[in-house]
């Protein structure tokens, strides 16, 4: 209980620090008024906008203003879209969430079995294959891989739509591209963990007492080997939510990652601020969940 509370308290502090830092950085990086005013604006327009949005106030006042509104759940209105940020983000976040969950599921469901198979027969054909697949995943830039899939499945065979979010079919290629990028690390870690564990005393003991190979693998070995994989997956999941920009852009998914990227360029501060806070919260929640999961998997961690 105390463990959980401590982690929660830390999480809140991290979120606060992130919001402060991002607020300061955004304001230092450029004049929001001239970005809002756009290309054809005159000096007077920009001055008017500066006063209209209150950019002429001290930074600390602007931050406090934002923070108190945000705490009440009011993220303000996007400068760019003239829409409530909550409405704008709600729509796009669900796309990014869907993509992130599909992506990480795809990564785990392919990487863990491959990792286990590779560890069971080190240096075999399967191991080599797994290594090859993971090296490919890390070496191929996702924009290129995405386009290759588009050419094959959309243009050549006309099986999947290249862009949009109308149906589940739209999510297949983005899921594979995003998941494939996260897969190698999970696969390598599973393999290394399994190799480690398989030579451990308790596995030998389990085998010696006549447990079936399946039972040894999954009950004794994998359960221990998977612990670092859980932590890694949590980080990867956070990364996918904030970092799916390229994939969202290629497949025109209009998710939160792409929105964040574009909003930074437009100096759309309320949108960026809200997104950064949400992404930070995701990281925090996933790390927190993975800590809990690991504590459940390995009772030794519960003391920490």
């Amino acid at each position, binding site marked *: 209980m105390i463990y959980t509370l401590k982690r929660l308290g830390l999480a809140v502090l991290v979120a606060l620090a992130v919001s402060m830092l991002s607020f300061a950085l955004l304001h230092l990086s450029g004049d929001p008024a*001239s970005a809002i005013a756009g*290309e*054809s604006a005159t000096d007077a327009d920009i001055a008017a906008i500066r006063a209209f949005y209150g950019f002429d106030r001290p930074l600390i006042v602007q931050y406090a203003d934002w923070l108190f509104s945000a705490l009440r759940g009011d993220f303000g209105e996007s400068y760019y879209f*003239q*829409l409530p940020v909550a409405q704008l983000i709600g729509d796009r976040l669900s796309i990014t969430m869907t993509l992130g969950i599909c992506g990480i599921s795809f990564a785990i469901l392919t990487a863990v079995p491959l990792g286990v198979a590779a560890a069971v027969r080190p240096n075999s054909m399967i191991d080599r294959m797994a290594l090859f697949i993971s090296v490919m995943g890390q070496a191929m830039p996702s924009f290129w891989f995405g386009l290759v899939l588009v050419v094959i499945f*959309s*243009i050549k065979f006309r099986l999947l739509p*290249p862009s949009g979010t109308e149906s589940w079919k739209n999510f297949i290629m983005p899921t594979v591209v995003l998941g494939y990028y996260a897969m190698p690390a999970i696969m390598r870690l599973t393999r290394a963990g399994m190799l480690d564990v398989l030579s451990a005393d308790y596995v030998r003991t389990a085998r010696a007492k006549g447990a079936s190979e399946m039972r040894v693998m999954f009950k004794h070995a994998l359960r221990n080997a998977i612990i670092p994989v859980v932590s890694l997956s949590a980080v990867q999941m956070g990364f996918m939510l904030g970092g799916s920009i390229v994939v969202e852009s290629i497949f*025109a998914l209009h998710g939160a990652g792409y929105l964040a990227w*574009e909003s930074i360029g437009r100096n759309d501060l309320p949108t960026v601020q809200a997104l950064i806070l949400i992404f930070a919260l995701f990281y925090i929640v996933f790390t927190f969940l993975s800590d809990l999961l690991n504590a459940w998997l390995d009772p030794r961690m519960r003391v920490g």
Partner: protein
Amino acid sequence: MKTVLKGASLFALSMLAAANSAYASKADDTLNIAFTKELENVDGYFNSSREGVIMQRTVWDSLMYRDPATGEYKGNLATDWKWVDDVTLDLNLRKGVKFHNGADFTADDVVYTVNWVADPSHGVKTQRNVDWMKSAEKLGDYKVRLHLKAPFPAAFEYLSGPVPIYPHEYYAKVGPSGMGQHPVGTGPYKVVSVEPGKHFVLEKFDGYFKDSPKGQAKIGHLDIRTIPDINTEAAELFSGGLDWIWQVPADQAEKLKEMDQFTVANESTMRIGYIDMDAAGRTGEKNPMTDVRVRRAVAYAIDRQAIVDGLLKGKSKVVNAACFPTQFGCTQDVTKYEYNPEKAKKLLAEAGYPDGFTIDFYAYRDRSYAEALANYLNAVGIKTNFKLLQYSALRELRMKQGTPMSFQTWGSYSINDASAIVSQFFKLGSLDTARDEEIKKWLDVADSSIDPEKRKEYYAKALKKIADQAYWVPLFSYNANYVFTKDLDYTPTTDAIPRFFQMSWK
């Protein structure tokens, strides 16, 4: 580098893959269109993007209409007009026009729209489109009087473009945000649905007034999606998901043309590129750009024709004056600087830089063009310290402390009048790097005179001095590539405003 790789890879692969295209769109009478950039707000007074201009012409009408072919101003929501004096314009309005929501168009709509947008406290984003108007006054149900703040010869240009008329009751109720999500106009297409920034569905407006100078829409439905990656747009085109894309980079347009599967059209736009130099010495008194010989050397150093031929291609042209050639008052009869690196070196030596100098050179777009410029400058001894910044960051830097030298572009907001560019930058504003009092005086005369000949004369004076003093080095005009299904009948216009209501199926 990344984008080059991307382009090369997709196009190599798609050449192999693309065999046949299904043209389903003609069958269901829907034109599938892609925008590259997210349109912020469909309300034309609250966006400053090209996509917004396009939507505005499709969904709304203005009081006048400029025929893109002849340049003639025709009545649109107004039928005829008369100047009462330099700052008062009376307009008779068209009867029998209806808004998409069924409301009748009357003088109340014009009066409300003009008075609302002209009030700076409402925060219209594109102030330059509206800040010349003082107010509007109702003279009858179909007659209005427009009051200007000062004589404004470009008034018709604005009244025929970026000043759409809104239904007064509806706009009073929903405001810009509501108008952006549920647009209501009188235009040839009505909006069926809006997903902000992502997806817009439009339908032909059957109640569109019969004698509109824009003509009647011919295609039943428009489906506009935002697809940020040009390669994905191409993929959609190949797989039949899109019928029409534009702003396709020159190298990719060439490849698509070779494939002969789509119509590839090229047309000039009003955007010009230029080098802006710190002649006024805002970045330091000793800044070499304060010397006219150095600025002229820059002009002589660059082979603009080679950049046009090698990089921009299409209908781009070298420009010599600080404006786009079709703009009113834009004379090209100014000092011309041919490509002559020897002369450039000589001028630099005369100015006291026989070995050249090093200077910060900024740009915000078209890296390849900027790098080509830098190479030409390096070749005559002007060593450039190249810096690529985000648009807003560079703009802020230029406004606050100036930059010694930068590659800039300006699209004049498709306003076919020299005031939209030369008066924007040479009237001692914070982006005026020349700060020439005489030029400002001339431009004041040109901008406010009602006599067209006098206007031409004074723009010419200003443009000649700008060229002679090489305050700017005007480089080239931009062009746009349009790629669309062969089923579509469409000819692009130089103002780079695709008019969907003039497109039809073959």
